[in-house]
């Protein structure tokens, strides 16, 4: 499902103590996995829908659980050029992940059947993960999906059935 750039965004402004560093890095890892746009130090954003809103709400809860401060905002960008740059940065990050999957699928076509089957299972899971943070239906998605499905139907090394 594609989203236009003019849609609402949900923003999380947060501050966590520098020490201990474990909660800080745990929060950052979770934000990365969600595919947030980092707009500033302690300010991240996602295109708003009920799911992203809830995801950031729980991260806000985690921040306050660790003695930090967190506020959630719903906002609409007024600067369309700037938001286009944010969107293209998010898209480029996801595109690079799709490209890596497609490249690995291509390499694995030369592997033996057992290794290929394992790679297919792993790459399908990886695609699923990437899709969760692909908010703008990145064009590389389809190419990566096709590369993995081609690997799945590769019968003998390097050849397709």
């Amino acid at each position, binding site marked *: 499902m594609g989203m236009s750039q003019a849609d609402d965004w949900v923003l999380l402004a947060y501050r966590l103590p520098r020490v201990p560093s474990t909660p800080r890095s745990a929060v950052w890892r979770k934000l990365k996995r969600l595919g947030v746009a980092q707009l500033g130090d302690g300010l991240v954003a996602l295109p708003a829908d*009920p799911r992203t809103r809830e995801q950031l709400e729980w991260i806000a*809860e985690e921040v306050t659980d660790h003695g930090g401060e967190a506020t959630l905002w719903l906002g609409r960008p007024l600067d369309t050029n700037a938001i286009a740059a944010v969107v293209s940065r998010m898209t480029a990050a996801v595109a690079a992940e799709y490209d890596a999957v497609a490249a690995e699928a291509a390499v694995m076509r030369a592997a033996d059947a057992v290794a290929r089957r394992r790679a297919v299972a792993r790459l399908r899971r990886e695609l699923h993960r990437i899709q969760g943070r692909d908010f703008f239906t990145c064009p590389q998605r389809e190419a990566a999906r096709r590369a993995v499905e081609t690997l799945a139907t590769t019968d003998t090394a390097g050849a397709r059935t």
Partner: protein
Amino acid sequence: MKWATRPGVHVDRAACAWLIRRFIDPGAEFVFPADLATIPAGATPFDMRGAALGHHQGRCSFETALEVFGLTTDPALEEIGHIVHEADLADERYDAPAAAGLDVLIRGLTLTSESDHDTLAITGRLFDGLYEHTRRQLMTGRPPA
């Protein structure tokens, strides 16, 4: 008793509501205020930001509820906790392949439900079935046919 959670219930809230009705309060009455400040007096909030029955220490609300209600000794409930955790958070802490299907089914259900009460009526049956399935699987070591 009255229990309050956010409207537009999804997997974690549906699972908590099932747990409450089945193991804690058979006459549970659920209300769906939009935020913690507007919950009716005497209602216990769950799966809302700031509630004790919420996400804490990396656990989803259902897992927190198992702890709070002292239901951690039931292995089937623990297993359902893993499924709900993955359906809700997908952080791959647990191996729970059923999670993806449960997530899709409940999301689809909320798109066509007339109300949150309507959703909970159906998810209640779903979780009854999931509990029975998980219990039998744990007893025999094999998925029930």
